[in-house]
């Protein structure tokens, strides 16, 4: 297993002109990147805007990406710089910190307004989380341990194999079966899947 081989194979395809491969990279990292950007901005909508800008910058800079570092490390740096620049330009903007007529700071109000634009997004997020948590609780012990060690602790298959005292192939199978069980529940609830990536395909 080559470290970063998965991302690198997608990156190489994008560099050869395959835009669909970039969709896969965005789908994989969008939540991680938004979470990262939220260290700099509290507003989820603003964090999504910055993450989007970081992805676009990364796409345009991909011809210069040589694979010396992992793709996510490279993307991470772009996102951090984009977030810092966004914070600086926002701080320079007098509108953001203006005091409104009633003497209340408009910054938080603006944030709430942005959030209120998509209340369904919050409902969807809560719903997905509860479905996933319920599905994990319903998993057999070995599958639950494997998926939690992978997703929550970030262990490699080899480390999970050592922790669970089983072959790496068994870990791979357990994680796959755990994902399939959770995914099945998601598709049942959302009638055939979340139905969003199809739009990108």
């Amino acid at each position, binding site marked *: 297993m080559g470290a970063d081989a*998965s991302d690198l194979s997608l990156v190489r*395809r994008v560099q050869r002109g395959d835009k669909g491969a970039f969709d896969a990279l965005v*789908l994989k990292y969008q939540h991680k990147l938004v*979470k990262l950007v939220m260290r700099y901005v509290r507003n*989820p909508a603003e964090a999504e805007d910055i993450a989007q800008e970081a992805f676009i910058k990364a*796409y*345009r800079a991909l*011809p210069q990406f040589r694979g010396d570092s992992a793709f996510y490390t490279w993307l991470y740096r772009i996102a951090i710089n984009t977030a810092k620049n966004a914070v600086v330009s926002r701080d320079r903007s007098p509108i953001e910190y203006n005091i409104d007529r009633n003497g209340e700071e408009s910054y938080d109000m603006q944030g709430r307004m942005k959030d209120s634009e998509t209340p369904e997004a919050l409902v969807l997020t809560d719903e997905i989380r509860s479905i996933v948590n319920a599905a994990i609780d319903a998993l057999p012990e070995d599958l639950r341990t494997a998926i939690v060690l992978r*997703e929550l602790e970030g262990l490699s298959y080899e480390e999970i194999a050592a922790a669970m005292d089983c072959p790496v192939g068994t870990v791979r199978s357990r994680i796959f079966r755990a994902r399939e069980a959770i995914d099945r529940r998601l598709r049942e609830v959302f009638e055939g899947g979340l139905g969003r990536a*199809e739009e990108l395909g």
Partner: protein
Amino acid sequence: MNEELDSQLSAMFDDELAAAECELLARRLSRDGELKARWERYAVIAAAIRAERGVRLNARVARRVSVIVGSEPALAGQSTPRRIAGRWLRPAAGLGLAAGVAAVSILWLRAQAPPGAVVATPPLAAVPAARVTAPAVAPAASPRASGPDSYVLPPAARGAAAVVPATELANYVVAHSMFSSPVARRNLLSAFMSSEPGDAGTIPVSTDAKSNAR
């Protein structure tokens, strides 16, 4: 959906799939909407398990990025030439330019000297440009009569003090060796040494010059 394929996709998502298999699956993933939807759900499951606070599990970012990227030109053909240009053309052009300037300077300096005269070049850094560009020819009978601006040795001193320009030029080339290639440098140095008689690195003083100094 093929279970083996899905299992590979799960391993690829975790970066635990062999590189050769990744290549094949990446190709399919970029084109297969169903596979891409599964890939997205794997990402959603991962984010939900990590319970990332404040992160909304929607595809807003991915959707908007996809639209913008869709309107941009494809990257094919942009990477290799730009990379090669960045890595090789710039230093090569710099080397070529430096070598060219050095060669032209040497040829020009030599061309300035009158036929049969030997140009005694002081260290370049210490010489004002006007002196270099306007060398004066000293009268043969009185070598010092031309004053300090003269860089032409009298014919009487020529035989013994002929190595000064070669030495100075050699010093110049060595001091600026970072701007020339080893082969070009070696050729220049050997050309200097072979074109001038005497010991390199020394400035012999003729008996005539010594007597003049007294």
